[in-house]
């Protein structure tokens, strides 16, 4: 009996030391080797908790190496049923969600977020979960829903005194289809390009289309039919069709730029609030 009691602290210490070597490599900054060592721990140990913890740490190293998709896949493969510790389970789910988000897999991260909130209903008000929810919804351009959660987040941080809610200035996005149609149905006006937000290109389009059309008409009047058709009509048609495609592309780019700008601004504001902490 005495023997058992005496051995226990040493055995516990020995088990605790399982991570020592891998941790030291990670702290030294060699994340690639640390990933392998954590994988070794997961392989050599039968305990589901140690396996899960090793995988979590290995995924963290991958995250440091910006191998987000691999980290998410590694965490997704963890057998959660045998892990007794709910906190560890939560960490695995959360890190998997975070890595999916960082790997630009917005839909996957949102579905992981939904399952996290399902398995851990209490966690839906956690600051980190709220933070991720806002980011995911922002990426999917569901800003109205994100606004509600943003308010909850600020309340959780007791930060209601934010100068102004950024969601009051949700960017007005352009409809790429509308831009394309405007260019197609209103030739010579550059309407599609103006709508897409590019005035100089709109003006240039008007000038080019009008010039080619005028040249074509003039050539035909001068009985130079081939020149009129091939240069005038051909040139006009090329810029007309090019203009419609360009208008659609510009509208898509405009939306992308505005979305990134807005989402980055919100992310920075949220991070600033988190770094400041609860007053």
């Amino acid at each position, binding site marked *: 009996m*005495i*023997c058992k009691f*005496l*051995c226990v*602290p*040493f*055995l516990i*210490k*020995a088990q605790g*030391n*399982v991570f020592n*070597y891998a941790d030291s490599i990670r702290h030294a900054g060699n994340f*690639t*080797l640390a*990933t*392998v060592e954590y*994988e*070794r721990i997961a*392989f*050599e140990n039968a305990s589901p908790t140690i396996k899960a913890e090793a995988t979590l740490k290995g995924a963290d190293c991958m995250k440091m190496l910006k191998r987000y998709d691999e980290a998410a896949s590694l965490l997704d493969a963890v057998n959660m049923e045998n892990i007794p510790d709910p906190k560890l389970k939560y960490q695995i789910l959360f890190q998997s969600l975070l890595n999916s988000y960082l790997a630009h897999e917005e839909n996957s991260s949102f579905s992981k977020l939904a399952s996290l909130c399902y398995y851990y209903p209490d966690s839906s008000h956690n600051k980190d979960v709220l933070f991720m929810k806002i980011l995911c919804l922002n990426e999917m351009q569901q800003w109205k829903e994100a606004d509600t959660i943003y308010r909850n987040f600020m309340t959780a941080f007791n930060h209601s005194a934010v100068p102004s809610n950024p969601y009051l200035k949700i960017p007005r996005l352009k409809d790429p289809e509308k831009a394309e149609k405007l260019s197609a149905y209103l030739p010579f006006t550059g309407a599609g390009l103006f709508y897409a937000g590019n005035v100089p290109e709109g003006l240039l389009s008007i000038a080019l289309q009008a010039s080619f059309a005028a040249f074509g008409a003039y050539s035909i009047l*001068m*009985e*130079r*039919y*081939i*020149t009129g058709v*091939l*240069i005038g009509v*051909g040139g006009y048609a090329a810029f007309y069709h090019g203009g419609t495609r360009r208008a659609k592309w510009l509208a898509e780019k405009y939306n992308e730029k505005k979305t990134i700008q807005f989402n980055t601004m919100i992310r920075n504001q949220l991070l600033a609030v988190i770094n400041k902490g609860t007053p």
Partner: protein
Amino acid sequence: MASIKKILLCIFALFIFADLHAQQLMRSFQEDMSFVQYLQDKGQYQNAIIALNEIPVSTLNPSQQDSLNYLKGWSFYNIKSLDSSSFYLLKVDTPFTLYAKSRFFGAYNFIYLQYYDEAAKILNNLAGMNPINEETKYFEQAGIALLKKNYPVFDTLSSNFSYNFYALSAQEKRFLNYKKQLQGIKKRSPVVAGLMSAIIPGTGKIYAGKTYQGIASMLPIVALALLTNESYHKRGPHSAEFYGFGALLTVFYVGNIWGSVFAVKINREDHEKSINQKILFDLQIPLRTIFN
């Protein structure tokens, strides 16, 4: 008495702890190999290479070094680093169980990298194998001959095909078909292609086998010819418009002839390349079936 008992128990506990710690630092080679195998099974070949690099080679006996080289070679093969894969696979020595597999895959990597002579040398040195491996050797050698377009050698080697082995028979039959396809590629003349495009623009490319390119290059030349003709008649032979369109027409016309000459060579190379890809693919399939 009680204090002696306590001291003894402490020593015993320390012994257990020291043993556990030592186990952590001094893993056996077998444990390392099992771990590498586990990583390979999970498709983590890059991590497997890192784990293998951690094993001190100087402490290993020849058999263990063979295992190490084989696993390294196999990991590199799976991450498509074929040069490194061959380097390690060909270090594997004769007594090793997977010697034949290492040699065949080492040779295949060289074939893929177009080091045909080195690959042939490795295969030629393989001897004393079972019937299926012996036929695989002829099969791989025949593949090299086919890739080198050395048809007499291919005929000699393919005469060894028995078509009795399930893992090889389909590919062996396909090789005979590839030979026919390669020999069937028409030898078109670049001069004829150039002349054809000079007479009717674009037809040289059609003759070379690039029909759509031929039609696409014909259209602007016809358009420019019409414009030049109209400028000549409406504006006269000394007008700037005539010179402009005429110059453009000349550039397009000469460019098209030039392009047609090269189209013959490019089309032939494209055709051969697509067959070579099939040969390389078929060279690998039996190896994976036989040795996996």
